[in-house]
């Protein structure tokens, strides 16, 4: 039996155009404006990592299933792998690198310091995403957003361990550093 492993469906024209559309966008990344000309197919994650040279957000799954690529986008935690860069022209992005001061000097963000104190990571690959997610999550809880485990949807949020765990579940850690992550966020939340 011979079969051709077709890599695109028949109804699509077999030959692609010789032109790859590009678009000019501006992203404010960690406080600096970047003007980039991007392939319209470029994800925000690849724009950051491969074009803007910011490898703080990580590519763990590239399909929105791990949270390693989380940044703060216009102040909210946001995946960058399931986002096309062209759709975010003008966005303000803060990565874990931007939460801290310059590389060798400057203070860490309190959440970052707490991650170190509580050893809330091992390999470190999911960590920038965890940190950004934690910062965004604390802001969400602070303005009273409920979660799946909130017993009373109309009551104030009490950021219990169960609440923190649920709210941080979009960030997988295969090293299993969840206990340290919990401790770090607890401390950051003032508990």
């Amino acid at each position, binding site marked *: 039996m011979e079969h051709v*492993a077709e*890599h*695109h*469906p*028949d109804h*699509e024209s077999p030959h*692609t*155009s010789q*032109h*790859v*559309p590009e*678009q000019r966008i501006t992203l404010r990344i960690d406080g600096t404006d970047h003007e980039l000309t991007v*392939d*319209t*197919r470029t*994800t925000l994650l690849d724009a950051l990592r491969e074009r803007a040279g910011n490898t703080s957000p990580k590519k763990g799954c*590239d*399909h*929105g299933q791990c*949270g390693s690529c*989380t940044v703060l986008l216009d102040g*909210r*935690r*946001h*995946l960058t*792998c*399931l*986002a*096309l860069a*062209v*759709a975010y022209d003008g966005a303000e992005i803060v990565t874990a690198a931007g939460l801290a001061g310059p590389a060798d000097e400057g203070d860490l963000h309190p959440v970052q310091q707490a991650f170190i104190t509580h050893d809330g990571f091992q390999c470190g690959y999911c960590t920038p995403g965890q940190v950004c*997610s934690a910062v*965004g*999550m604390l802001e*969400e809880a602070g303005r*009273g*957003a*409920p*979660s*799946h*485990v*909130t*017993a*009373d*949807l*109309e009551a104030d949020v009490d950021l219990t361990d169960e609440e923190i*765990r*649920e*709210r*941080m*579940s*979009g*960030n*997988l850690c295969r090293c299993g550093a969840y206990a340290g992550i919990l401790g770090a966020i607890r401390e950051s939340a003032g508990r």
Partner: protein
Amino acid sequence: MRPLTYAAPATAAEAVSAVRGDPQARFLGGGTNLVDHLKLGVSTPGRLVDISRLPLDTVEQTEAGVRIGTNVRNSDLAAHPLLRSGWPGISRALLAGASGQIRNQATTGGNLLQRTRCVYFQDVTTPCNKREPGSGCSALEGYGRYNAVLGASEACVATHPSDLAVALTALDAVVVVLGSDGERRVPMADLHTLPGHHPEIETTLSHGELITAVELPATPLARRSTYVKTRDRASYAFALVSVAAALTLDDDGAVADIALAWGGVAHKPWRAARAEAALRGRRPDESAIAAAVEEELREAAFGPDTEYKRPLLRGATTEALSRLLGGLDGKPGGTSEQEGAR
């Protein structure tokens, strides 16, 4: 990922005409499902029309209830005070879905139009009638843990993955759709279709029609709604089965009004009308609930991989109604919701 052009029109009407006139064009909302599919090769549009920046992002109280703009993000909708008090089952369904990050990104309309997570649909190296009509259904004899048990066909056993859609179906939402001929309203129950011979068709929308809003009627029932999602992982996982439920009792503790919809069982959110009918006027105890679930499952088809969904639907429906009743100890009332230890 095929090369594609990108445009972000200023108005919904322009967006509609841009997609309407180009069979290769797709709307881009939050992107949480479409960008995934672009990478997998499941979807290969030549043109994206970005509607995520259109000002359809407000939640407004109306005379009949609430009107939710299509671009309202899942997280914002779940946290909205109107929803939390008037339609708690909607908030809970949203909060049970995806992750904090994805809920910040995913839109209301996009959530309803997300596509099945059937592993074969997402794997372009295997046959799938939904992805490539006529190629066959790999799930029928394959990995079937998430397969449909109601309304499926020989062509497709995929389930619809949205939690929100299940809750909206239970609470009689109406979807507002803009087409080239103007606006029309589609009841949630009529938005999605069963697979039949054409699983590639998933909704009653035509190419270029855009969901602009979702309307929810305010009812006493909706105020006493909840959502139970069962899954292997405690969070960040699609449902094995889910139940959107709402309930009011009469003075004798019998069911006055009830709404039930199931997720994870069919190609569309499944309104469990037979189960509702079986429970109306009856005291909602364990055996009545079990009988009602069996009634709904009369025409269900289970396989070795999906047999567990029968007791799970019974259990999840029991759990949902139990939460609304504050336990199943026969106590009448059921006006307060008490969450279990979850």
